């Protein structure tokens, strides 16, 4: 089996990035957009071909999906510990290839319309390609270190694209915030990697994840503060994942990241990069599950559940539609984490794992669609805020319909994609923990409320008069909307459990009718609430807001987490630690160096008068010295 064509999947976007990046000024915008789209089309075709080969041609070997791919040694640390570079094909990486390539292609096509006339058009496509390359590298990574390298690369591309409108102060601040917060989380990831490397002697996923391997069997051999060191390492790795996936309390960067262009939000901050954290936990799932009887996995579950509730509550109050979607993303990511956290390993036990990946897949489709629709709306009315919208269904029929499909999908209404994956998650959680199930159900209801709140707010609500009548977006923008809408409506019917499960054997999936009914009912209730409040212009919403009073303000300001972090960094880190470190640096470190330099200068000033400038004086000194040395060596130092 030859995997060279798999290698092309990440390399084509890299080549496009280099081409567009190096000849940024030379390439005409129309051409650069075309190059970007064509490159991505090629790698999308390769991705689909790979998936087809993997799932249907090669299929199961000995009843389970195999791990394929190849790798070369990149760096040797010790005899056993080394870093490889290569590609790894297993069910989740192949699935991620599909997600990344599909969404990225759609976003590329969309961007040709959305970014039209922008000054940095070519640069934008170059960055998009860089991101796509990094994301492919991340999902195909064979070991922890390789995933870390690409992990940082997606962070950089995210930084570049959030700060794309670099003349706007808020965009620059948001880019810095995203980079610093995720970087801070990645410190945990790095320490976790180093611990794993030190105690297990390998970075390779295959070796680490083998349930009969030494890494998993010997987890109890070393402990630290009452827990296995590997548990600590996995918690640290999860901190890295939580940073990327905007889990509480490292979520603060995601809403601000919406300063970037909307296609970027769709690609990076909804569908692909932010799920990297979920993917990371899934990638190391056997370790999470077996080490310390899944202690670290419990933490994943609770953090995920809390984040999803927390974000859903905030999403209801936000007025910027992109921010609503950002909190919605955070909430859905929490769902995925929760599902992973409650998953078992063998057979049907692996429902949580499978549903998490399923939800990742469907969520990527409908959330990218939601963002692209929001972008289409923003393109038409030139504002992010709900107050500037309303009654748009007459002006933008395609955006209206596609947004509605995506909204139904995320609210979990059958037969749209979100229903199937969300139902599986709720079943998995129900079987594991009733409290978390309650959280999940509440979040499902809240999701329906906030998504239909903005749906009605944008497309229905008050019939307002626009200064410039908004019109439907060009075909390059509506085409991706239509494609993604079709996908959002249909991907739910993929029998995911056949393909993806922790033990890779697969199991028979089925719908749990009572739980599904409950979930759908909650979704419908949520939609009805939104209907009553926002379908027609009325003051029910503001009345409700007044009723909640201070609690509403509290939620509206995102529980003041930004302010809390600012307080901690400004007053404790900057004033306390950084200021004293700066004082030490300026006075002690620099002072020592300056003192050495100054004393040398002072001494040389004092003794420079000894130089007369007359060559004969020097000659005399030299001869005298030579004679003296001769006397010493010949007569005195004879012994």
């Amino acid at each position, binding site marked *: 089996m030859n995997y060279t064509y798999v290698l092309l999947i990440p390399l084509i976007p890299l080549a496009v990035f280099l081409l567009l990046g190096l000849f940024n000024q030379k390439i005409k915008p129309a051409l650069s957009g075309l190059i970007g789209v064509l490159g991505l089309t090629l790698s999308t075709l390769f991705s689909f071909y790979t998936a087809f080969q993997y799932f249907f041609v090669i299929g199961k070997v000995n009843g389970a999906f195999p791990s394929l791919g190849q790798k070369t040694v990149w760096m040797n640390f010790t005899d056993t510990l080394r870093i490889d570079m290569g590609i790894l094909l297993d069910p989740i990486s192949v699935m991620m290839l599909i997600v990344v390539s599909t969404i990225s292609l759609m976003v590329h096509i969309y961007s040709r319309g959305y970014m039209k006339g922008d000054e940095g058009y070519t640069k934008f496509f170059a960055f998009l390609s860089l991101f796509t390359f990094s994301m492919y590298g991340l999902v195909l990574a064979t070991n922890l270190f390789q995933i870390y390298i690409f992990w940082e690369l997606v962070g950089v591309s995210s930084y570049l694209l959030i700060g794309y409108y670099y003349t706007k102060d808020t965009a620059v601040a948001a880019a810095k915030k995203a980079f610093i917060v995720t970087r801070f989380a990645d410190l945990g990831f790095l320490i976790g990697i180093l611990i794993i490397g030190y105690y297990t002697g390998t970075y390779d996923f295959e070796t680490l994840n083998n349930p009969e391997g030494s890494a998993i069997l010997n987890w109890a051999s070393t402990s630290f503060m009452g827990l296995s060191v590997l548990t600590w390492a996995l918690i640290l790795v999860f901190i890295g994942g939580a940073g990327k996936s905007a889990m509480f309390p490292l979520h603060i960067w995601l809403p601000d990241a919406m300063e970037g262009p909307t296609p970027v939000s769709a690609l990076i901050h909804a569908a692909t990069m932010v799920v990297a954290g979920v993917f990371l936990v899934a990638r190391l799932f056997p370790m999470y599950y077996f080490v310390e009887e899944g202690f670290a996995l419990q933490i994943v579950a609770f953090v995920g559940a809390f984040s999803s509730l927390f974000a859903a509550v905030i999403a209801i109050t936000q007025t910027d539609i992109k921010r609503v979607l950002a909190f919605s993303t955070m909430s859905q990511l929490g769902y995925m984490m929760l599902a992973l956290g409650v998953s078992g390993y063998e057979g049907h036990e692996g429902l949580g794992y499978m549903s998490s990946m399923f939800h990742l897949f469907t969520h990527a489709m409908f959330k990218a669609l939601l963002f692209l629709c929001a972008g289409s709306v923003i393109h038409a009315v030139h504002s992010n805020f709900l107050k500037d919208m309303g009654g748009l269904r007459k002006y933008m029929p395609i955006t209206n319909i596609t947004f509605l499909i995506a909204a139904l999908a995320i609210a979990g209404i059958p037969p749209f994609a979100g229903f199937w994956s969300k139902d599986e998650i709720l079943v998995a959680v129900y079987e594991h923990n009733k409290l978390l199930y309650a959280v999940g159900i509440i979040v499902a209801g809240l999701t329906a409320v906030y998504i239909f709140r903005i749906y009605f707010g944008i497309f229905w609500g008050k019939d307002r008069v626009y200064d410039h009548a908004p019109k439907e977006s060009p075909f390059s923008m509506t085409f991706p909307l239509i494609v993604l809408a079709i996908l959002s409506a249909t991907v739910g019917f993929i029998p995911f459990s056949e393909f993806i499960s922790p033990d890779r054997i697969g199991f028979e999936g089925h719908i749990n009718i009572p739980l599904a009914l409950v979930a759908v009912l909650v979704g419908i209730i949520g939609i009805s609430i939104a209907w009553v409040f926002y379908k027609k212009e009325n003051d029910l919403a503001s009345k409700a807001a007044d009723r909640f009073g201070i609690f509403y303000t509290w939620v509206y300001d995102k529980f003041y987490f930004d302010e809390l972090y600012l307080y901690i960094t400004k007053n404790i880190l900057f004033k306390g630690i950084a200021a004293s470190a700066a004082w030490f640096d300026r006075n002690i470190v620099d002072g020592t160096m300056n003192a050495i330099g100054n004393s040398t200068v002072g001494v040389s000033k004092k003794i420079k008068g000894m130089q*007369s400038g007359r060559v004969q004086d020097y000659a005399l000194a030299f001869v005298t010295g030579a004679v003296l040395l001769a006397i010493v060596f010949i007569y005195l130092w004879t012994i």
Partner: protein
Amino acid sequence: MIAGITIYELFTVTSILFFIGVYGFITRKNLISVLISVELILNASVINFVVINKYLYPDILQGVLFSIFIIAVAAAETALAVSIIINLYRQINSVEVKDIETMKY
């Protein structure tokens, strides 16, 4: 090898020549005289080369050949030094050692 003259006597002569050169180098006021003193030092060492070659290793010729090299180098060096001195004279109208001390520090 010269009959009746020992190597010690020849060393004495070259040593006297050498130290005359050193003395002259240190005390002369005129740059040309300083240059002549340097030539004396060089000549003393050239004679030493020849003497040691002839008295101690009569079978080989390295020392003699080396002395020829030194003479050639000394000639070149003298030409260079004289040209420097002439240029110096054009600049400051003097070839006195005491006048050339502006480049100290």
